[in-house]
Structure formats: structure tokens, C-alpha cells
């Protein structure tokens, strides 16, 4: 690594992984959690004509996926700048 000390590189990677784990927990909860495991519980609530669990399974989880991906991209772009490893 010409641009970074080993210690810095380790810290950068650690922060990347911890961000990733947090976001993957959300990824898991909105799809497998709300859409499959807890679907019957959430279906007791209505959002308009949607049962809530059904909404997460067919709509909500997908919106969350989009949000998570962009959030990760922007957080990582900031982290790259902070560690001075961005490509500009």
C-alpha cells in the first residue's frame, strides 16, 4: 500500500465493514424480517388498502433496498475522502 500505512488501511476497512454490517441488518429486517418472518404480525396493521406485512414484501422492502444502496455509496464516498483514498 503506497498511499496508506497498514494501520490506516486497517481502520478504513474496519469502518467500511461496520457500516456494511449495520446496513445489511436493515436489509435483512425489512425483507426477511418484515416481509416473511413477521408478516402475520404486521398484517394486523393496514396502510391504505395494504396489509403492512404484504406491503413490505411487495413494495416497502424494494424502496428500502434503493435507499440502503445510495446511503452506502454516499457514506463510502465520504469515508474515501476522509482517508484520502478517493480517486480524484
Amino acid at each position, binding site marked *: 500500500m503506497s498511499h496508506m500505512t497498514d494501520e490506516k488501511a486497517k481502520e478504513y476497512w474496519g469502518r467500511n465493514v461496520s457500516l456494511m454490517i449495520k446496513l445489511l441488518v436493515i436489509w435483512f429486517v425489512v425483507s426477511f424480517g418484515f416481509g416473511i418472518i413477521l408478516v402475520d404480525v404486521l398484517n394486523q396493521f393496514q396502510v391504505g388498502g*395494504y396489509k403492512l406485512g404484504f406491503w413490505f414484501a411487495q413494495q416497502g422492502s*424494494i424502496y428500502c433496498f434503493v435507499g440502503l444502496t445510495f446511503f452506502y455509496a454516499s457514506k463510502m464516498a465520504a469515508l474515501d475522502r476522509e482517508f484520502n483514498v478517493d480517486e480524484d
Partner: protein
Amino acid sequence: MDLQTLTYLFVGGTFSVYIGIAIWARAGSTKDFYVAGGGVHPIANGMATAADWMSAASFISMAGLISFMGYGGSVFLMGWTGGFVLLAMLLAPYLRKYGKFTVPEFIGDRYYSRAARAVAVVCLIICSVTYVIGQMKGIGVAFSRFLEVDYNTGLLIGMCIVFFYSVLGGMKGITYTQIAQFVVLILAYTIPAIFISLNLTGNPFPQLGLGSTMTGSETFLLDRLDQVVMDLGFNQYTTDVRGSGINMFAYTMSLMIGTAGLPHVIIRFFTVPKVRDARASAGWALVFISILYTTAPAVAAMARLNLIETIEPTQGEYLVYDERPQWFKNWEKTGLLAFEDKNEDGRIQYSSDANVNEMVKIDQDIMVLANPEIAKLPNWVIALVAAGGLAAALSTAAGLLLAIASSISHDLLKGMIAPNITEKQELRASRIAMALAIAGAGYLGFNPPDFAAGTVALAFGLAASSIFPALMMGIFSKKVNREGAIAGMIAGISITLFYVFQHKGIMFVASTSFLGDMSPNWFLGIEPNAFGVVGAVVNFAVAFTVSSFTAAVPAKVRELVDYIRIPVGAEEAHDH
């Protein structure tokens, strides 16, 4: 203008655009041919990825599947979108940083082994070939249904178009045609959906219409649908679980990691300039995909409701067969709809009870293909759906064919058989490989093997159980070594194939299945198509176990792992 003329106009128009792009975007180097020169804007790549990803199955079949599965169909919606989150965080940025041309190339270098690269090539080719057969069939079917051209002629026309832009332009030609194809397919999908949502609920957004009340009524559309399907004896639409919770969990997870592991999707992320762009591009791809995937459940529910209310306008009052609408007659001719008057009363009884049901055939594809006609939309919308279906099939076929061709010319030829060929020779070889891949795929399209229907699911199972774990461990672990990775990939594929074959028959020949396709014999109630995730778990377990007993990863390879984890310094890896 009549429908036939309009359809020719739309299909002909879109095809001339694709050819125009092909002439403009010719490939001048192997870098152009494999990764479109590496300078594709992340939003443009997002669109191209969306078209690459959304196949004839997504466009034509998925809404129909959900239509008849109800809540159970959610496995496709979550599975085929959630994989992009994994791709964005776990694979795409690091493989882009690595900066080479193919997926097996990374596996070969990371596991310092030609054998590993060869195993990856085999997995890639099996995944992509099985997948491409479905696209070829989609092209033939779309032509024969909409243009009344013979299936084989239609397929031949489609092959010529793909041949033109992919042999000439490689990834560069494919990228820019995929962008055009995305625009065509997304308009073709959403416009009928908007009309239908307006008709039924008054809301122009299908995503909101699905949760709204029916026009002129206080009843929610989904409540109405639940009611009518239950009156016919089916399970409640919004709670109809597929198999069991465990099965849905496994199915969704298999599709997600299968999606992230499909090589033709991964290589799209090699075309953007920077690591940062690869991350953002995955987000854009997901935005463009979500437009279709959040519309599909509305199409599914509304088409089902429309169909039932056409057949049974008021409860107990069935449609008189002789008074059936024109679209019904049109689609009867194709064999996708079939009626049998069992009680000879001249009316169409539709029921979940097979003894009473007279709608003996409702093909799932009807729900998208006939949707504009059922909703009485103008002819130009129907013509647009034809062009959209073709765009979806062509764009995915081209992406798959490139993945196959590049693994033949770059991994097998340049990487193993003839490492000393010049770039010019390799470019020529890649064009020949592409032409051969198209010919091979066309052959399989003309003579679809008996197992074709079962194999798309197999492609996901293989990608999930072999390629995804190998790539992920290669990036996130410095402990997994050559022996571990090869053993893991072989174990993952073997157990997945074994499970599929024991239930579905060896190579899908039903008589050779030794456990029968019966749910009581399923492991934890998991259906064969959902088994990829179990294969992946086995792959991870075997790879870590074998690695802990064999020689550690060489220092140079550990440095490579450090190198791909950090965005800066992309230039250093280019030694090809």
C-alpha cells in the same frame, strides 16, 4: 392504423435504433470489447444494468406468476432486487478496483490457480447458457405472438440483430443498445399499468393504486381481490404463503445471492471509471429496476381481478362463451387460454376445483401480454408491449452472450491455451467466440432441450452456490486458500445439483428422479429451486474447513486482497 402495421412500425423502429447504435459504437480494442472502454457514466451503466438484468422472464412472466401466487410471489420481487444490495456492498466495488475483464480471471488470481479459474469458467458457462435459452425462446415467442411471424423466423431475425451489435461493438455496442432497450421496455411496462390503475382506482401510480379503493366504491382493491379469489375457492391473495415460511426464506435468499453472483450482471460494473462509480451505479441500477419491480405487483393483482370480473361479471353469473370478448378469442388461438365446457351450459365457470373449472388453461404470460387488450387500451399500447418484450429478451441475451464469449476468448484462450496472442488477435478471437456463442444459443433456441424450463432456476442455484461464495470469501477473507476455494465451489455445486436432480430427475429427465418431485421428501420443506442458499452455506463451510488444514495464502495474494479493498491506485493493476 391497424394493430399489425403499428406493431411492425414500433418493432422496426426500435430495431433500427439498435442497429444505428451498433454502427456508432464499434469496438476498437479488447478493452472496448470486454468493458466498453471502462468509461461508462454510472447512471448510464445503471440503465444498461437494469436492461441486462430484466429478462423476458421479468417482463413477460413475473407479473403473471405473482398473479396466481399472490403473497407467495413476493420471493421474486424481494429476491431479484435485494441481490443488488449485496452486489453494491460485497462485490462490485472491489471487483471494479481489481480492474480486469472477467469474473473467472479474478477467481484465478485470488486463488492463484488455473484450476480455480477453470472451475469458475465452467460455472459461468452453465449459468449463462441455461439462462440464454430462455431469452431465445422469449424472442421467438414475442415475434410469433405479435407479428404473426413463424417462431423460427422470429428467432432468426432476433439473432441477426444481436449478432450485428454484439460482434461489432462487444460490451461497448451492448451497453449503448441496452440503454435504448431499457427506455423501450420500461415505457412498455409502465404505460399499460398506468392506464389500468387509472381505470380501476383512479390513481395514475400503480404502486399507490394497488393500495387504493376501487373507483366509485369504498372497497379497497386488495380486499375486493381477496374476496373474489376466495369465492372461487382459492387461497386469500394477500396471505397465500408459498410452501412454508422456511421455503420462502430460502427461496428469497437463493435468488438474492444468485443475482449477486451472476457473471453477466457483475461484469457490467467493470465498465465504470471508478470504484465510487461502481457503488453509485448499483444504486442507479436498482432505481431503474425498481420501477418495473414495484409496478409488477400492481399489474399482477389488477390483471387477476380484471380477468375474474370478465369471466364472472357478477357473482354466480358466468360469462356466456359465445359472448366472450375479442382478446379472449385472440389468445385462445395461441393456446395460452383454453376453455372446456364441462357441464355444457355454454357459460365459462372458473373455479379452484379442477372438476368444475372450465378455464382449463390460463398461461401466466397472458397477464402481461393480454393486459392492454383486457383493459381495452388503444392499439399503439399493444404494439409498444411487443417492442418492450423484445427489448427485454434481446438486452439480456446480449449481456449473457458477452459473458460467455469473454470467458472463452479471455479466460480459456488468452488465459490458458495461448497466452502469447496479441491484443489484435484476442479481439478477433473474442468476435469469433461471440459469433459462435450466438450460433450455439440460436441452436438451443430452435431445438429447446426438454430440460429448458427447469434450468433458469438452476442458473440461480449454481451462481448462488459457487460463484457468489468464492468471490465474497476472496474479498473478505485472507484465510481462504486455493484448496479451500476449489473444494468449496465443487461441494456447493454438487450438493445443489444433487438436490435438484434427485427431485426433478437427472438433467430433468423425470423418470430418473429417485425421490420424486414430492414436497414430503423436501429437506426442511425447501423446494429444489430454492436450494441455492443451502449450497452456498455448504460452500462456505467446506472452504473454511479445508483452508484451515492446508497451506496458508501466499503473502503476494494477501497483498492483492489489501489492494482491492482500497479504492485509490486503480492504475497499478493493469498488466494485461
